[in-house]
């Protein structure tokens, strides 16, 4: 890049090679060398004629001159065209490419000063042309000089774009229905693959309290290992927790859980069992404690279905290993006897809020997708009608 823009006239960045013009070197055809006969003939006065035998040579020489002149003409025309286009399309970066780069001759008999000037200006060989004034950092300068531009550029009224934008926005609603749209609809109607997944009820995973406890232990394990490794590199000095692996962790957790599992009131039996007992046991709180038939009665009544044991007889803490199966057996018996309505799953569900919520949502999804599908079917039908019209 050459030169700093000087003064208000030059608003061009000095990237000469961007100019589309090729400043051709118009070399003149040396008449003496190439066209000797021609020169000689010209030198003669008018009286001396041209011999017939000279015709042929003259013809060749004239042809040479003519061809160089016409080439020059062509190039000039092309350059002018570029110049015109360039001036007209100011904002355009499209340049016409000249394929030719000939050297042209200018006969010396055109010794007018204008020609000389042209040769002077153009005779620097196809070097880099003046640059295009469109680099970003010149934007403010360019705006300043808008006033000095050709009158062609001035009357550019900003176009009113609003109606175009409006129609563009309305277009999607008013456009014709094509088979493309029909195809899209059909695609939409295909049941999605993940539908099945939505309706699946995933099996109960580990309860979060267990999981968190497990994770916490593992975390502590890791920390311990890290601390031990950092503090003391010897293997023998690992903390008690680092030797545990997952299995041990599980066992540890279970132990702690087992300790907590006993309900506060110390009754391991399921709810149904308790209720049954309550129904069967007549609690006479008011009556004095010396009512000894209580233990007997409970023993008798509980023998009615023969499935329960008598926990109150024994004072020492006992462990009943089969409370759950007891519970379920009692339930079955009661249902069989007609004392309890058989409610299948909702009973389970009431304990699981998450499951309940999940089911509710699934039902909603089913209803909604059915509704959507009917609507899509209708739409498809209408679209097909429209297309065939």
């Amino acid at each position, binding site marked *: 890049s050459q030169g700093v823009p000087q003064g208000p006239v030059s608003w061009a960045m000095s990237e000469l090679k961007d100019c589309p013009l090729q400043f051709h070197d*118009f070399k003149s055809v040396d008449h003496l060398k190439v066209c000797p006969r021609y020169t000689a003939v010209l030198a003669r006065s008018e009286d001396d004629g041209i011999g017939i035998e000279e015709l042929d040579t003259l013809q060749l020489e004239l042809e040479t001159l003519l*061809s160089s002149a016409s080439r020059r*003409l062509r190039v000039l025309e092309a350059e002018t065209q570029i110049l015109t286009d360039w001036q007209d399309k100011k904002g355009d970066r499209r340049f016409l490419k000249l394929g030719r780069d000939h050297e042209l001759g200018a006969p010396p008999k055109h010794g007018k000063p204008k020609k000389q000037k042209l040769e002077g200006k153009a005779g620097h060989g196809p070097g880099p042309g003046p640059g295009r004034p469109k680099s970003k950092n010149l934007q403010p300068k360019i705006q300043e000089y808008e006033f000095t531009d050709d009158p062609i550029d001035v009357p550019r009224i900003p176009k009113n774009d609003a109606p175009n934008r409006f129609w563009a926005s309305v277009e999607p609603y008013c456009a014709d229905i094509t088979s493309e749209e029909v195809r899209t609809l059909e695609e939409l109607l295909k049941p999605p693959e993940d539908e099945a997944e939505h309706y699946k009820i995933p099996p109960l995973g580990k309860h979060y309290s267990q999981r968190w406890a497990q994770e916490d232990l593992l975390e502590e394990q890791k920390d311990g290992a890290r601390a031990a490794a950092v503090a003391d590199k010897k293997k023998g000095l690992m903390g008690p927790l680092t030797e545990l692996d997952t299995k041990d962790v599980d066992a540890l957790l279970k132990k702690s859980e087992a300790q907590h599992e006993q309900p506060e009131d110390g009754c391991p039996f399921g709810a149904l069992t308790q209720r049954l007992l309550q129904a069967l046991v007549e609690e006479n709180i008011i009556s004095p404690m010396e009512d000894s038939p209580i233990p007997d009665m409970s023993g008798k009544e509980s023998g009615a279905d023969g499935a329960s044991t008598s926990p109150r007889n024994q004072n020492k803490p006992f462990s009943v290993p089969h409370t759950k199966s007891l519970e379920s057996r009692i339930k079955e018996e009661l249902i069989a006897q007609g004392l309890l309505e058989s409610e299948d799953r909702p009973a389970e569900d009431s304990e699981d809020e998450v499951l309940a919520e999940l089911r509710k949502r699934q039902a909603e999804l089913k209803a909604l997708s059915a509704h959507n599908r009917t609507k899509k079917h209708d739409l498809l039908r209408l679209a097909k009608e429209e297309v065939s019209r």
Partner: protein
Amino acid sequence: MQTENKISPYYRTKLRGLYTTAKADAEAECNILRKALDKIAEIKSLLEERRIAAKIAGLYNDSEPPRKTMRRGVLMTLLQQSAMTLPLWIGKPGDKPPPLCGAIPASGDYVAKPGDKVAARVKAVDGDEQWILAEVVSYSHATNKYEVDDIDEEGKERHTLSRRRIIPLPQWKANPETDPEALFQKEQLVLALYPQTTCFYRALIHTPPQRPQDDYSVLFEDTSYADGYSPPLNVAQRYVVACKEPKKK
């Protein structure tokens, strides 16, 4: 503009003005040159007419042989000159080369004029067919046949041939610098006049001419050479025409 490293509307307009002037000058120059060339062509055609008239007149004059058979060398020189002075086609910008310029074939209904040079396929006495360089004497619309004279030894009989056996030779040279498409390209099959003879033979173009005065460089089909082709030989644009027929057995 280049020295000052500036482009501005002012300079561009100025340059445009200069170019316009230069263009006008160039156009004027071209016109004058063309006029001069036309004059020369006029003179030549006058000469040609005179020659033909003399020929015809000479035929009626039986006191002396119509024409002494030319010596070979003289004939060859004549041919050379004729080739050299074939006018060069210089089109104005936007002009396309006309038919019978270089490789551009003649239009379908073209009729060669008397005095035109053509390549004619004649049957020799021994039954062999050869393409010879000939000059048109006349054309009969009625029978669609040309009468042609062998350019060599006018004493030979005239041939009367149908149009299919006549290929007119180009009347302009094509300028390689402005109309390269009017030239035969490398590897094209052509009929070319074998140097120092007056017969056309099949050949492949080796190189087209680079400058207007240059000749084609061609490879003649020649079974006496190992690869079947002669070394490159120069043939003027005038004596190279397109070859249409398939190889005869």
